[in-house]
Structure formats: structure tokens, C-alpha cells
């Protein structure tokens, strides 16, 4: 399927570029996070004692504040050692957050849940490992619909878009709802010295995709590749673990984003002048610090972590959602993702 991209030239005029696209549209995006803010001051007051090196890492992540579904007095009093107790005190479950994000995505898509033919969900912090999170979310809507989880950590949304772009048309329902929802603060230990309390925040995001109905953003190009060996930055068994020693250097992150942008430029003759960059959300600070080198000004860096905290697979969707209402004609959005040793890739989205 051919699609026309509009590029702003050096002279400020518009240039048309004809490209092949996947025929897939993002018709709605939504995000949700709890009301309670988990500030740095509050965390400092718990006596968590970050080292200078750890504060340097936090600056690389660019996380200023975060949201939590737990009451602050509960965190102060208990440091969240008992994970089962946390659930009884939490204002919201991952499913609750997922439903809120899904509602916003459906509303923005202008459709009802009954029009959705497949619900897919991802959660790093499910209350139950069976049934699937997708079953609980669809169940909360009260619909009978094909549903299952595809769990892919921080790369969930890029994987979903890439995946659907490679499916047979006749096997794709009219609308597919993807939800990534995480409540990591319910699994963070707020005791001792560690980065995890400063990194994670609770959030969900949802994306409605269609290959039959036009939407605000067309998927022009998607690309995923396996990346290196497994060095997980985030690990979840009981408590959330954040392995800063596995973080790539800032130069590696910037190189990867540069390569992604260059690949799209060479393939589609694009420039970075009129695009919004949804970069690897865990490295928002690195992206801001290197915006000049990347050729993307800080105001065109979409962010899903700075005031919400890192919410694993949900963060990319939170970033896209934050820009949804400002997307205008000819707008291009580049999603460049790097996982924790899993895969990296890029997606080019453009509005018609």
C-alpha cells in the first residue's frame, strides 16, 4: 500500500514522498496513571541514601517524579516489604489501570469495546499469572472476545505494531486493542539503598490498531531486530530489581537512536526536522542531553517517564498518548526502542 509522507524542506515548504506502508493505522492511544505522586523529596525522606553514582544514573534516566497506586503513609510506615499487603492497600490494580487506559484509547478511536475483535495485554506485575491480564481487562469490560497476553517487557508496544504489520489481512479483526499495564511500585522495596524506588512508577497505556479503518497515525515502517545477549536491566520475581550495571552507556543509547533515525532517513528520504521522537523511555535524560546531536529539539522528544516514572512496557504508550491531541497534518512520529538485551527497532508513524 502506498502512502504520501509530507516533509518540511529547508526552505519551509512541503515536499511529498511516496512510500510503501504496512496498511496499518493507530486509531487511538490512551494512558492512565494513579493520582498519588511519589516525589524525590518523599523518597529522600525515607533515608534511602543514593550514592553520587546512583544520582548520576538517575540523571541519565531523566525521571523527575513518579506515580504510585500505594498510599504514601503506607510506604512510609511499612517500606512495602509485604507484597500481598500492598495489594490490599493499593488504590488500583494493574487491571484497573489497564481498563482506564483502554477506555481512553477506545474513546480517542471513536469506537466501543464491542467493535474490538482481539484484546492483547502485557504486564510485568500481574496480580494473577492465570488467567491472562487480557482476560481480566476484557472481563472488566464485560465482553466475550478473543484475548490473550503477549508479554514482551519494555518492547511490548513496538512488538505489537511490528507483529500486526506481518499478519494476513483476513486474520486481523477490524480493531485490535493492545494494553500494557504495570504497577511496579507495589513490588518495590522502599528499604535500604537502591535505585528501584527512584526509577519505577505505575502506569498503563493502550493502543487501538486497525488495518481496515483509517486512523490518526499510519504505520509507515516498522523494524525489529534481536539485540545482543540478555542483560536484563529490569527483573521481576517478587520485588522489582533494577540492575544499573546492565545499563548501556549513554553513547551506546545515542548511537542506537542515531542509527534508527539514519536508517529511516536513508530508506524514506526523511529528515528529522518535523518529527516527534519517542525514544527509549528509560534513557530520556540521555536523549535530552544529546538532542542537538540527534537533531531533535527537546520539545520534540515525547516523554512517558519524566513525571510518571518508568513503567516498563507501558512507558512508550504513555509517551505517544501525551502527544495525541497535538498530532496535526503531516506529523511524523518515530518510535525508537531498545530493550534490555532483547531487541531494538524503529517505527515510523505519520498522520494523514
Amino acid at each position, binding site marked *: 500500500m502506498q502512502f504520501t509522507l509530507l516533509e518540511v524542506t529547508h526552505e519551509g515548504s512541503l515536499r511529498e514522498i511516496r512510500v510503501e506502508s504496512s496498511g496499518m493505522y493507530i486509531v487511538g492511544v490512551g494512558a492512565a496513571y494513579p493520582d498519588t505522586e511519589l516525589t524525590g523529596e518523599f523518597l529522600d525522606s525515607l533515608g534511602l541514601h543514593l550514592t553520587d553514582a546512583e544520582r548520576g544514573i538517575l540523571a541519565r534516566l531523566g525521571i523527575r517524579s513518579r506515580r504510585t497506586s500505594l498510599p504514601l503513609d503506607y510506604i512510609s510506615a511499612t517500606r512495602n516489604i509485604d507484597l500481598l499487603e500492598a495489594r490490599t492497600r493499593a488504590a488500583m490494580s494493574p487491571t484497573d489501570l489497564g481498563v482506564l487506559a483502554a477506555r481512553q484509547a477506545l474513546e480517542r478511536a471513536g469506537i466501543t469495546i464491542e467493535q474490538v475483535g482481539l484484546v492483547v495485554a502485557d504486564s510485568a506485575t500481574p496480580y494473577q*499469572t492465570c*488467567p*491472562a491480564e487480557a482476560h481480566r481487562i476484557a472481563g472488566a469490560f464485560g465482553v466475550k472476545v478473543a484475548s*490473550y497476553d503477549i508479554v514482551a517487557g519494555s518492547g511490548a508496544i513496538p*512488538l505489537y505494531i511490528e507483529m500486526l504489520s506481518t499478519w494476513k489481512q483476513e486474520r486481523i479483526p477490524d480493531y485490535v486493542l493492545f494494553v500494557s499495564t504495570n504497577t511496579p511500585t507495589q513490588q518495590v522495596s522502599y528499604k535500604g539503598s537502591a535505585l528501584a524506588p527512584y526509577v519505577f512508577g505505575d502506569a498503563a497505556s493502550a493502543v487501538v490498531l486497525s488495518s481496515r479503518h483509517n486512523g490518526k497515525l499510519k504505520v509507515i515502517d516498522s523494524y525489529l531486530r534481536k539485540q545482543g545477549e540478555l542483560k536484563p536491566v529490569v527483573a521481576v*520475581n517478587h520485588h522489582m530489581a533494577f540492575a544499573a550495571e546492565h545499563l548501556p552507556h549513554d553513547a551506546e543509547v545515542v548511537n542506537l537512536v542515531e542509527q534508527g533515525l539514519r536508517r529511516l532517513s536513508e530508506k524514506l528520504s526523511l529528515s528529522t526536522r518535523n518529527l516527534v521522537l519517542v525514544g527509549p523511555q528509560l534513557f530520556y535524560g540521555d536523549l535530552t542531553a544529546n538532542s542537538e546531536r540527534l537533531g531533535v529539539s527537546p520539545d520534540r522528544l515525547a516523554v512517558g517517564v519524566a513525571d510518571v516514572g518508568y513503567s516498563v512496557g507501558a512507558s512508550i504508550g504513555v509517551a505517544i498518548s501525551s502527544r495525541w491531541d497535538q498530532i496535526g497534518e503531516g506529523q511524523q512520529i518515530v518510535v525508537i526502542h531498545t530493550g534490555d538485551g532483547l531487541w531494538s527497532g524503529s517505527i515510523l508513524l505519520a498522520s494523514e
Partner: protein
Amino acid sequence: MLHILGMGTCHADTVITNKFLEELDIGTNAQWIEEKIGILERVSTLPLDYIRETRNQDPRMALDVASMTPTDMAVRAAQDAIAQVGIAPHDIGMVIVNSCAPAQTVPGEAVRIAERLGSSAVAFDVVTACPAFALHVDFLRNYEESKLPEFVLCISTAALTQHVNYNDRSDGAIWGDAAAAWIVSPVHKGKLEVIHSTFTADPTRCGAVVVDTFGFFKQDGRAVRDFSVRQTVRLIKAIEENYPIDWNRDVFVGHQANRTMLEQVTNNRGIPESNHWHNVTYLGNQAGAGSAATLCENWDKISPGQNIVVAVVGAGLSWGSLVLRAKVP
């Protein structure tokens, strides 16, 4: 057309007999278990002493004493399947895994398994519950075949005895720990070709069967059993209406929930015992691994031209079906 080229399994090594459960003195006995669910033995990754002494009252402790994790079992099953097909881990281009009680949620089970196998394939979890065999095959049929790699490794693994409350007289009798793996190819012809697949769900009944991440398995037993029998029969009927199924030649493989439930299904559809393959009697309900493990164990019995009818139902509530036709030389 997708083909299943080979399969592998791994079962836990500790046998839990009905007599052992009777000796826990929790209001059950061997005769009641046999009559009610038709399971004589099941296998567990937990030591018998641990079950006897703690009744697994804190499932978070179970992993500390377990002989294998779901990942360990999955790796062994995958190695079996890879060896059977005669390929190497680096030949695999995609790994998808179902685990309804993973020991760790991130990185995903598929990523950890691929790493252990030495595969650099793209790996992610595709999760439902017991109907995983049908879901994975149906999921792969969504892809343009040219977009799939030559070899896809599918795995379902579960160690649900680690989530059983052994003070409950029913739950302890049901579960067995196992993994099953199967290798699918859009390019290479194998023993079985996929001629039919379905998967769907009724999430309005998602509370009927649950496994708490840090806690126990729980289910509304009677409602789930009745639904499972009815839905399995419906799935088989739909296949009978659309394909030339001959139960004197073809074979039925169901979800290995319990033996009495499977007998109700086969009695309803007139499926002779000789053409009903099952392993629940001595291995217990192996969740999403059960149906694939059963087929794997009967791999050498598959005859040319035979249809393998798979109909599976589970948590979600979700269900799916497959018709796999054996290659005629």
C-alpha cells in the same frame, strides 16, 4: 501451510500418589480421587517431605525447594524437540512460550529459555492457560508465511504444584508439573500439517480459574468442569461437521484436566478408547503442556493420513481446537 516437525516433553520427577494425598489427612482418600477425577498419580517438582511438612502454605517458598523451575522444564522439553527435528538452537528464528505460573515475569519466560538454549531468536511470551497448544498454532497461522522464520519453537510450561494448597482435598489431586515443546515451520514439511485451528475466549468468566502470582490456584470446580465438557464437545462437533473425521482412524487429544471429564467427552462423541490419547491418569493435569505432551508421547504411533483432533479448554475462560493431519508418504 504450517507443519509440526517434532515435539519434546519434560515431566517433574517426584510422584505424588493418591495414597500420599490420603495420608495428608485432609479429608480425601485414594478411592474418592480415583472415582471423582480418575487420576492415580501426578508428578511434582516439590519434594514430598516439603509437601507433607508445610502443605505448601507459603507458595513463595516453593521455588526454594523445587527440583526444577518452569524454565528448567521448558529448556529440557525444547532440547528434546530440537534434537528430534535435527536442527540446532541457532536455526530457530522465533521462540514463543506459554507459562501460567512463571517464577519470574520479567524478563519473560521465552527470553530466559532462548538464552539458556543459546538461541538468538526473537522471543516473547504468548499466554493463555490450558489451551496454549491451540493458541500458539492459531497465533502462528495469523502471520504471512513469508514473514515467519524457518523454524519456530513453541513451548508451554507449568509447575502448578508449586501453587497448590495441600490442605485443600481437591486441588492437591489435580496438578502435575510438565513442559511440552513443538517446532513449527512454514517451509519444511513435517510429520503433521496444520489444516485447522481456532482460539477464542469468554473473559466475562475470567474469575472461574485463577493462579495468584504469589499465592494459590483456585477454581470454581463444578462450573469449570461442566463448561469444559460442554465446550470440548462443541469444538469436536464443529470439526466433525467440517472435516471427514472417522473415529476408527482419527485420534482425539483433549486438555488433560481429568480422566472422568475426558471420558464424558469421548462417550458423547463415540470416540473409542483406542483412539483417545491421554496421559492425565499418571501425570495429572499439566495445564497448557498436557495436550501437547500427550501428542508428543504418542508421536511414533501417528499413522499416515490420520487426523489428530485437539480440543482444549481452560482458564480465561478460553478454548481452541486443531486438526493436524499426518503426512502420507
